[in-house]
């Protein structure tokens, strides 16, 4: 049975289909990586148009609250096993937008991230490197973020709801809010 699993993981690690959702500015290094100069198809990674077909979700940089909502929908549409790659500084600790009112600070509070890549933005070499690293992890059966998500669904959901479904002003100054409906 374990050989079977190893075999599955071997194949899974060699065929990453990536979701074509360019969430942040890190997506700018994806076209060069996808196309002729760096050609990530060599590693079996190809962009896919819909979340149903995809195996890996690249979170390419910062996420605005609006994007986060879409990203969560997208993630939940993907079929397990699925992996999330946190791309660049913004996903790790807010990056250069650390004090922005519309950008989340840490991705791992909302989605289970399997691999983080440092950089702002990561070079194509770093991206290819991370695919190789992810392949290794998958082959060893260590990348199990999707199981973690299911197991701790309540916790993730609570965090997601906290930022996405606000019912009162965050700064607690309703009397100053002069905005009309």
């Amino acid at each position: 049975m374990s050989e079977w699993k190893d075999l599955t993981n071997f194949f899974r690690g060699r065929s990453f289909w990536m979701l074509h959702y360019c969430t942040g500015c890190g997506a700018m290094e994806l076209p060069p990586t996808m196309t002729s100069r760096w050609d990530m198809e060599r590693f079996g990674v190809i962009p896919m148009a819909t979340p149903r077909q995809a195996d890996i979700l690249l979170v390419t940089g910062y996420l605005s609250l609006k994007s986060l909502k879409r990203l969560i929908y997208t993630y939940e549409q993907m079929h397990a096993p699925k992996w999330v790659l946190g791309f660049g500084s913004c996903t790790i600790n807010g990056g250069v937008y650390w004090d922005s009112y519309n950008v989340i600070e840490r991705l791992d509070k909302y989605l289970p991230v399997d691999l983080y890549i440092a950089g702002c933005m990561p070079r194509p070499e770093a991206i290819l490197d991370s695919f190789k690293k992810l392949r290794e992890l998958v082959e060893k059966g260590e990348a199990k973020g999707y199981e973690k998500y299911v197991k701790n669904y309540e916790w993730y959901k609570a965090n997601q709801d906290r930022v996405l479904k606000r019912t009162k002003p965050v700064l607690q100054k309703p009397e100053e809010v002069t905005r009309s409906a």
Partner: protein
Amino acid sequence: MLESVEKKVEELKRMNLEAKALGDWQFEVLVPRERTAEILAYMKATGYKTFIHLACVDWIDDQEFELVYNLENYDEKAQALVKVRIPRNKPEMESMMSIWGLCQVYEREIHEFFGINFIGNPNLKPFFLDEWLDIPPLRKDFDTLAFSQELFEFKEDESHGIKAPKRIEYK
């Protein structure tokens, strides 16, 4: 400075407006709120046909908002910044949609970011932000750092765990 700019500034001064050149090819003109539509229509009729942007500045010390209509004249190669000041405690302004339809989106944006009401604009629904309940974010009294610390629960703590840099090796 371009001749056309000079001429235009003179012309606007004759209309009892404060106008001055800002550079070779741009000038600003300060317009009272009630004459905005008139002046903008006049500007459009005199060649300033392209609407470049509508920006807002929050002069919190003066308790005023300043709306900046940026117009461009391709024939005379000139650019006009038409500025209007409105009181901060009653942030209301007439919509200029009848002159440039394009104003619709700019006004919607400013409504969202500064909380200014544009009378006559039919669609001021949330645009860039989702479910915003606080002070409009680009106002000067909105503290973005406090907001993000509160919402995203991160703290600027002093006690960093320190690690030596390392590089991942591949077999």
